[in-house]
């Protein structure tokens, strides 16, 4: 019987561990770094705004009541006539928008998504300290292709979903969901280290932070 690659590799690992036993027995991982941090609303808002702006995202703040108005303003300003939304985005968010709204159905091919001027989604969690927005594919955020292919991403962030640091954010995630971390628009520094914003993802990221949601 010939051994499978699986058995061979696992056997080699066991041999290796026997040949070079661990310098120390079972390691307990010291987790003395900061976890479970909290900050008042105003400070989380200020920190997130600062970090998003630093990474060239546009930031708008508003109250729940003004959501539709602010979203419409952003779309108008960017000249977006046709936008996509995930199946279960709160439809009132586009009440003030006079362009065409296409609800994603999952069988729209990627090139067709590329013909949209933009996409509006909600978000799952945000990390203030790093300026990172987490999308997890929930029905108000949609499949990953939807927030990737169009050139403008308008992302709504509720202040209550903004946490201070990375550990607090990771703790809120559901591991099995397809998760995308977004920190500003895409960028490259591959040519003589000169930063160029907007390579393959949306070239514009507009974040609408709702301070009472």
């Amino acid at each position, binding site marked *: 019987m010939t051994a499978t690659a699986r058995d061979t590799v696992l056997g080699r690992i066991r041999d290796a561990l026997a040949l070079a036993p661990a310098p120390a027995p079972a390691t307990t991982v010291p987790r003395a770094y900061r976890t479970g941090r909290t900050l008042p609303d105003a400070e989380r808002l200020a920190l997130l705004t600062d970090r998003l702006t630093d990474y060239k995202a546009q930031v708008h703040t508003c109250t729940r009541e003004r959501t539709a108005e602010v979203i419409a303003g952003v779309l108008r300003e960017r000249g977006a006539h046709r936008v996509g939304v995930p199946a279960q985005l709160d439809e009132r968010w586009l009440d003030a928008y006079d362009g065409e709204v296409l609800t994603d159905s999952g069988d729209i091919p990627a090139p067709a998504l590329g013909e949209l001027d933009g996409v509006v989604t909600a978000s799952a969690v945000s990390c203030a300290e790093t300026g990172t927005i987490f999308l997890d594919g929930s029905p108000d955020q949609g499949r990953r292709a939807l927030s990737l292919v169009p050139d403008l991403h308008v992302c709504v962030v509720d202040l209550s979903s903004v946490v201070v640091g990375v550990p607090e954010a*990771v703790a809120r995630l559901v591991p099995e969901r397809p998760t*995308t971390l977004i920190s500003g628009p895409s960028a490259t520094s591959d*040519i003589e280290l000169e930063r160029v914003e907007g390579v393959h993802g949306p070239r514009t990221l507009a974040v609408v932070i709702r301070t009472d949601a």
Partner: protein
Amino acid sequence: MSTFLGMPATPPRSPYGTGNLRGERTFPQAAHDELRNEQLRRNLGRATHTIRAKRIAVTGELPDWEELRDAGAAIKTDTMNRLPELLERLERKVTERGGTVHWARDGVEANEIVTRLVRATGSSDVIKVKSMATQETGLNEHLESAGITPYETDLAELIVQLAHDRPSHILVPAIHRNRDEIRQIFLDHIPGVDPGLDNVPAHLAAAARAYLREKFMTTRVAVSGANFGIAETGTLSVVESEGNGRMCLTLPDTLITVMGIEKVLPRYQDLEVFLQLLPRSSTGERMNPYTSMWTGVTPGDGPQDFHLVLLDNGRTAALADRIGREALDCIRCSACLNVCPVYERAGGHAYGSTYPGPIGAVLTPQLAGMHAAKDDPNSSLPYASSLCGACFDACPVKIDIPSLLVELRHQNTEQAGTTAEKLAMKAAATVMRNPKLYTAVQKAASLSRAVGVGGRDRTISRLPAPLDGWSDSRDTAAPPTRSFRSWLASAEGAATMRAAAEEGARRTADDRTGGERTADNRTADDWTSGDRTADNRTGGERTDAERTDGDRTADDLTEGDHQEGQ
């Protein structure tokens, strides 16, 4: 073949003559050519210093940076101790979620698995996310020989691929190219590119965007690497900047991920550590623009056919060795490259391997061996370091690279004898600006190993020539029980090094007048002439309070015993 019974057998290294883990020439031979490339040196210098300054700024921002490093190092140690169990768990979780797991004993087998999977889809093209594992196995060449065209989608990898070139840096693989060269590469190789394309980076990036957009929309198979694979949940992760990763991981029908077995992490929670350590150490950002995490197959979202290829290719051989085992902790952030004075001069190509720089000098011989053939170029790699310790200070998982290199040199001496060692050291020294001083430091460092105190606190009782002469004549013998590095950073060490530097300069001048210029000496002259260049001193480069230059002069050394991120 290994069995669970009887004596454990030493696992094999990556098979000789396969993949990209060995150059054709030794490090010093290859470095000599690179040293003549002014463009490369300038670009590399600028890149490494810029990224370094950014890294210092964003790691300094976190008051718990050291605690994160401690956690990162411990998680990796724990991972290596429990590797079989963790890989089996990862396999189970990925399978439960609709993925298929494959195991590859070596790079050739991994390439064959990927090729077979691509063929099964009927596609003759694949899009690729930058992946060191597939660079290591030479997957692209293998695919091409099977009639499948791989398209690299990371901008730098695309430049490298179009120019039939090799990457020179882990993070910025095309750093050896300037904008004019890149423009020409695009004009020559991108079908239908605007002939009026200029050399503005934003325009060049836009040309790449347009070219790749079509590939993203139409190619049905993608191949990626992985930064992390979580055993607990089966979640895989790719960390990137441009969005090409998201495109490849999301749009195709089939996704094939090739991951080294050492990239597994025990728990999902561990991401809270590595998502802080990696971006800050790598690009010097608080967070990279995009990170994707996926678990098997998600109905209605992304590729519905997912394969994970777990790659050995010498990793188990490394695991069986104390040095290799520590080197496997590496998360490929490239911080150690950016602080290394030898890397900065020689460039990535000189190492002849997918893994350049300080970690490459350890990892490459561990994965592929350093005595696999007569005059194996890999045996020169342990000498491609000034042992200055900057890499250790920068490493987010606290790999003590200098100590590992000293151990590797020791292993090399045992295999090849002291004459070989001396020759290797001498050859490597010619890469540096001041070869004599470099050699002196190297000797002192290996002596410090011989004294038998390992790790950070290596002590020396006596300095070797030529430093001993200087310390004697100045009545400043090195104290017996200080660590070599703290001695090096002290005023006394500084004075000794200054003396040695002057000696080095004088001897080089003598050599020149003596008319005995060899090719090696000529290179040495280039590096010896003048003191530390003015531009290194100005422009705020020294905001970076790190130990960076093994060959720097006494003035630099008196800046004190810098430790990063305290």
